[in-house]
Structure formats: C-alpha cells, structure tokens
C-alpha cells in the first residue's frame, strides 16, 4: 500500500459494530451482490444489510446453491464471489460448494455465522466446528474471536481469495463479535503479511522454454483454467502466441474459451472425452507446453503411458502443481498471462523461428487424425440425439452474448464437445469435483452478473433434481435463465460406465419416477417447454431464447447414446474408444475399474 493510501485509510477509521464492518468491508471491496440465506447466527449482519443500499442480496433456496451461484458470478466476471450463510446447517450445506470452488480455483469469500464465542465448544444450538470442517476445503479460513481483528480479516480474506491460485476463503463470525463495537479501517489492497504468491516468472526460464519451443518438431500447446483465471488478456496472449508459432493448441475442460474453438489451430478438448486428434497429438508430441493446467487424471489417463517421448514445459502459478502427477522438464512459476506476455516479447526480441518444415509434417499427421471425425454420431429423424440438441442450441445462440453452465454427466461432456467457445469466462462447469447440481445455481449467479445475456444451464434430468429448488430464486429475481435438460431418463454417465465396465448391470442408474418437467416449471412460475422429436427442436429453442423469463426445456433424447471418444480409466491416450463398436481392453479395464 502506498503511504498516501495508508494515510487515507488511517484517517478513515470509524467506530461501528462487527455486522456493520462486514457490510462496509464488502462495499470497500467493491462487492455489489452477495448470495445468502439467513439464520439466527447471522441476524445482526442481515440487519446491517437491511440498512444499506450498496450491496444487493440474492436469497437462494439452499446454501449449496448460494456458493455455486457465487462461483458462476466469479467465473463469468473474474471478480470474487461472496456468500453469507448462518452457522451449523448453513455452514455445512455450503461445504460442497466450497470444495467445488477449491478444486476449480474459484475466488470466493464465504461469511458464516457462528454461535457466540462463550458458547463455542459447548455443542450449542446450531453450532458446528466450521473452521475445522472447512479447513481442507478452503484455501484459508478464519474464526474471528476479537472485534479488533475483524477489519483486517475481512480484507485479508479478499486478498487471499483472489491472489495467486484463487480459491474459497471462509470467515467464521461469532454472533457476539457481530454485535461488538470496534474501530473499522479500510484495508483494501493491503499486502498480506506472509502470503505473497509469486506471479512474475524467471526470465531465464522463459528463454529456456522458448529454446525448447523453437526446436520442437511435433509441438503441442495445452492450456487450462489458469489462463482463464489470469484474466481475458491472458487468453488474447495465448491466441497471439499460438498464431506466432503456428502450433496446434488443445484445452482442458476448465480452459475452454481460452483459445477460440472456431480457429483452425484448435484441436478441441483433450482428456477422457477429448478429441482423437488432441489426445493423439498429446501422446506423440515431442514438446508439450502446458500453460495453466494441472495434468489432472482426466487428462493424462494412465500416467505411465502419458506422452512418453515429450519434453514438458509446465507454466503454473502454484508451485505445488509442478511434478505432482507428471514429471516435467521445465517448470515456469508465474501468472499465465504474464508468462505468455514475456514469451511473446522474448520470441520476437530474439528473432526466434520454429522448425517450420517439421511442424508442417506434424500438421499433416494431425489432419489425418482429424479426418477420423471422432465426434460424429448417427442422426435419425425419429429420435433426438443429445449431440444434435447441443449443436442446434449452439447454432441458435450464435451472435448473442451467451454463457453456458452445465450439470455433471454425459450432457456435460457433450456440451464441452459440441458447444464452441470463442471467448473466456463463457463456460462454467464443475470440473474438479464434478458436482451434480452445480449448473442451475451457477447459471443464476452468471445471469445476475450479465442480466442481458443468454444464460443456459445444459442439464441432465438426474442432476437438475439436485438443486431444482432454485427455480424459485429465478422467479423471485426475474432471472431469465434457461434450463436445457437433455432428458435420457438415465444417469447416463453412470449407465455408460456400467455398460462398458460392469457387464451391463445397471444398478440404480435408471431415473425412475421423473417429474413432468414442464408442469414442474409451471408450478414454480417458470415457462416449461418440451421437444420430443428432432423436428420440434429448432422451434422450441427459438421459443426458449425469445422468452424473457426463466424457461425449463425438457428435451427427450436417445436413452442409449454414449459419449465418445472415451479413454477408459487406466488406459493411455492411444487406447481410446471411438464408438460403440470399440471394446475396452480387458486388462486395462480391470486395472482401471478401481479408478474413478
């Protein structure tokens, strides 16, 4: 902090209650919306909320949804999402969302009420050990036991949530501290005492990386969510660097949008349900440039056969991501955007050139893989193929500002494969934790941040039931979110694994007793639509988009369709199943069965 800012903050010292400090700190942090649910242990904060006009509160119907909504808000804006919940069940309901945000590196601040300090540890009504429970599922957490600490903790929470590798931070606030009076000081942008993540890369590492890149014959650039987290400029730099080198580029599920999907140099998503060309290019490359991805097991498949002959460069802001799963040849610690900026600068300054001829041959090979057309599927006139439904949705939403969220399952993977994202922050999906029930609340948070945009939750009929209550929130705040259910009447992804790996024994994966989603939508006060044949689809999607209200669309899709390509757990990238004709290698299957 500059001395003038310090002086200003000093001068700004004001006396107020802990609850007022919460609202004031939110205002000082530029927070304009929070997602929450009241209860006994946060009543003073709700009282302070009532008395001000700066921060808008969105009342969800379940605390898990508050956290996912804040995630959607954060991911679609790049800002910190804020959650307010009560003690005990309020806090425990938030745990899934916090874990989700930790796994996907989403910046959140979650304020939880707590029983008064003198009751802590007494098994008081609605007491739980919130900091104990959330320690492993937050980036950091605080229990504030003295009013003097509150201003610092509140501002520190934002600093920690957004800096370095972002993540969720919990501030547990006993009720007596909310009532206590103290001195408030704005400490916005105050650097943290100990936490100073490194964002500036080492220049020598950049040069070494560029030497490897320039000498590559079969290169690939593999980008992840770290590029999205580094801000939109990082994505522009990625595109510039990819064009500068002429190299092929693939993205993880979390990275989609960091490089334009419509570009020729994009090979599609990689990993378990990634494209044939992306996975084979990863397998056969000689230089791999990983920018802001973490060699997740959904991406690498069997580690011992992962890209066996490549030199690997790994750019990451988190040193603990380096050599965690895959040994790399050159780690570069730093912010993805800053690293890309320096790579471009040094590439030009040093007048580096790629080995154009070799790279051209490599492209020839990649084009051959591409011609397999791995995402093709058989269309019919009778039955809606889920892939086709997403393709139509994609076509119809072109030219609009569109944001897509998903639930978890086959529909999520088809959305990733068939919906092309040309810009970052447009795609919100639960990658690391794979949380069914994420999509609807995340869409809610996204729509709050982008009131005029088309926000669609591509859902499965099983997942949507996990946070269906949020339809009520959509209605209350007139959020025109579209819930596009690919209804295959199965927990499709579970059924697919049972079919391929468990001898077709479909234990408990059939969606019995489904509600009538159209009537359900109407009962909540939303619009309900249905498509049962391919001929219905375009009209229904048009109507959905044209409706300026929350809409639930029940799309009856093929119950038996499986998601391909697929690399079964425990298999290598070169052992991909491309369609229903392919059978998994029984040996690999046995090893893989223990994996998830």
């Amino acid at each position, binding site marked *: 902090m500059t001395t003038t800012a310090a002086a200003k903050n000093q001068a700004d010292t004001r006396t107020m209650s802990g609850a007022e400090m919460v609202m004031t700190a939110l205002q000082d942090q530029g927070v304009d919306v929070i997602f929450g649910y009241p209860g006994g242990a946060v009543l003073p904060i709700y009282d302070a909320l009532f008395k001000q006009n700066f921060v808008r509160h969105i009342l969800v119907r379940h605390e898990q949804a508050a956290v996912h909504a804040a995630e959607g808000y954060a991911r679609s804006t790049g800002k910190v999402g804020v959650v307010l919940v009560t003690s005990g069940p309020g806090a425990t309901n938030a745990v899934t969302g916090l874990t989700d945000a930790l796994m996907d590196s989403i910046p959140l601040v979650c304020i939880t009420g707590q029983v008064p300090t003198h009751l802590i540890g007494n098994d008081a009504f609605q007491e739980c050990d919130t900091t104990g429970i959330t*320690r492993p599922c937050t980036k*950091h957490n605080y*229990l504030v036991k003295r009013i003097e600490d509150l201003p610092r903790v509140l501002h520190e929470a934002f600093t920690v949530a957004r800096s370095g590798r972002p993540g969720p931070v919990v501030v547990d606030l006993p009720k007596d501290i909310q009532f206590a009076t103290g001195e408030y000081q704005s400490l916005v942008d105050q650097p943290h005492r*100990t936490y100073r993540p490194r964002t500036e890369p080492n220049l020598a590492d950049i040069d070494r990386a560029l030497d490897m890149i320039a000498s590559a014959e079969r290169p690939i650039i593999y980008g992840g969510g770290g590029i999205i987290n580094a801000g939109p400029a990082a994505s522009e730099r990625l595109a510039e660097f990819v064009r500068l080198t002429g190299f092929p580029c693939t993205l993880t599920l979390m990275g989609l949008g960091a490089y334009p999907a419509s570009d020729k140099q994009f090979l599609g998503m990689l990993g378990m349900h990634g494209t044939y060309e992306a996975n084979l290019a990863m397998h056969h490359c000689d230089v791999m440039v990983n920018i802001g991805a973490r060699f997740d097991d959904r991406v690498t498949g069997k580690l011992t056969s992962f890209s066996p002959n490549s030199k690997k460069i790994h750019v990451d802001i988190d040193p603990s991501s380096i050599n965690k799963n895959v040994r790399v040849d050159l780690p570069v610690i730093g912010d993805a955007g800053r690293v890309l900026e320096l790579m471009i600068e040094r590439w030009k300054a040093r007048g580096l050139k790629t080995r154009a001829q070799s790279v051209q041959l490599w492209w020839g090979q990649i084009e051959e893989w591409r011609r397999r057309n791995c995402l093709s599927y058989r269309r019919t006139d009778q039955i809606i193929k889920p892939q086709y439904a997403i393709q139509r949705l994609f076509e119809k939403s072109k030219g609009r500002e569109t944001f897509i969220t998903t639930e978890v399952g086959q529909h999520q993977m088809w959305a990733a494969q068939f919906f092309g994202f040309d810009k970052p922050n447009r795609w919100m999906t639960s990658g690391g934790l794979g949380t069914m029930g994420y999509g609807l609340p995340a869409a809610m948070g996204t729509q709050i941040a982008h009131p005029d945009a088309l926000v669609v939750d591509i859902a499965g009929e099983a997942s949507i039931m996990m946070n269906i209550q949020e339809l009520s929130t959509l209605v209350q705040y007139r959020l025109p979110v579209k819930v596009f259910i690919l209804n295959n009447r199965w927990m499709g992804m579970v059924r697919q694994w049972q079919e391929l790996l468990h001898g077709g024994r479909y234990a408990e994966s059939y969606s019995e007793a489904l509600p009538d989603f159209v009537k359900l939508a109407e009962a909540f006060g939303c619009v309900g639509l249905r498509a049962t044949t391919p001929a219905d689809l375009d009209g229904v999607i048009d109507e959905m988009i044209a409706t300026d209200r929350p809409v639930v669309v029940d799309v009856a899709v093929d119950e038996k369709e499986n998601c391909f390509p697929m690399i079964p757990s425990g298999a290598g990238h070169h052992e991909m199943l491309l369609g229903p004709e392919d059978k998994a290698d029984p040996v690999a299957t046995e090893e893989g069965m223990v994996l998830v």
Partner: protein
Amino acid sequence: MPTSHIARRHIIAVIVDNEPGILARVVGLFAGRGYNIESLTVAEVSHARHLSRITVVTTGTEMVVDQIKAQLGRLVPVHTVADLTTEGTHVERELGLIKVRCTGEKRVEALRIADIFRARALDATQESFVFEVTGGCEKLDAFCTLMEPLGLIEVCRTGVVAIARGPVAIGEAS
C-alpha cells in the same frame, strides 16, 4: 532404480504464524494427502512476532518430499519452509524421558548404561529411575533397546528438533 524413486528421511523446518489452527492445518495436510509423519514438534520461537517453528520428520521419494514442501508453502500462515536434509548440513537432537523399573543387579546395569549414554537420572526410587537422554533418534532408540530387558516401562520422546549448521538463519538467502 533411479535415486528419485528411493524413499528417504527428511527433516523439514517450517516457520509459521502462531495462530489457532495452524497445527491442525499442517497435520491435516499430511493426513489428507497421505504423507507420513515420523515425528512433529512445535513451539513458539518468537513471542514478539508470534512465530512458531514446526519440525516435521517424514519419509518419501524426492517427488513426494518436493510435493510436501510445496504444499506446506501454500498454506497462508506459513513464512518459510526449509528442507534441512537437502539444504546443506544440519544438527539434530531429540530428548527422551525414560522410566525403568528394576531392583538389584539390574539397577546397577541400568546406571552403567545411562552413564555410557550420558543420560541423567531425573528421578529415582528404590525400584525405579527416570532418565533424561538427548541425542539423535538412533541414540535414543539404542538406549531404549538396552533398557528393555532391564525393566523399561515408559518412554516419552520429544521428536526431532534440528537446525542448519553455519552462520545463515532459516529464511535468509545464503
């Protein structure tokens, strides 16, 4: 086998803010990620700056130990992480309080062994001793092994504390 695949013992020193929950954070990290802890000691080392020092002894391959250090470094209240085993040389000590119950000939033998190990008798009764012994882990192990047949009934060990040799302090650029 390449050396990087061999599990080795490492002594890791961590300087942390002395705040509630910090020990739970460190222990939780080891438990949650499946790293093993051979011993762990913690005590405040600067009252004025609210700093504590944690010494963890762990075993792992190079890749695992690098992960442990990186994960520790990621904890918000952590100031410094030093691997005393790989960063230069160090000295290490452990203190043990050892109770032996014996009479007659065995008492004489216990005192003789204590003398060899420079252990001090902190407490004595007609039929027992409490010895204080300091040294490396192996010395304490050996002491206990020798006392076993003489009537060893209780062992209390602090776990290892360690510090780098030479004029440089932890966290200073060397």
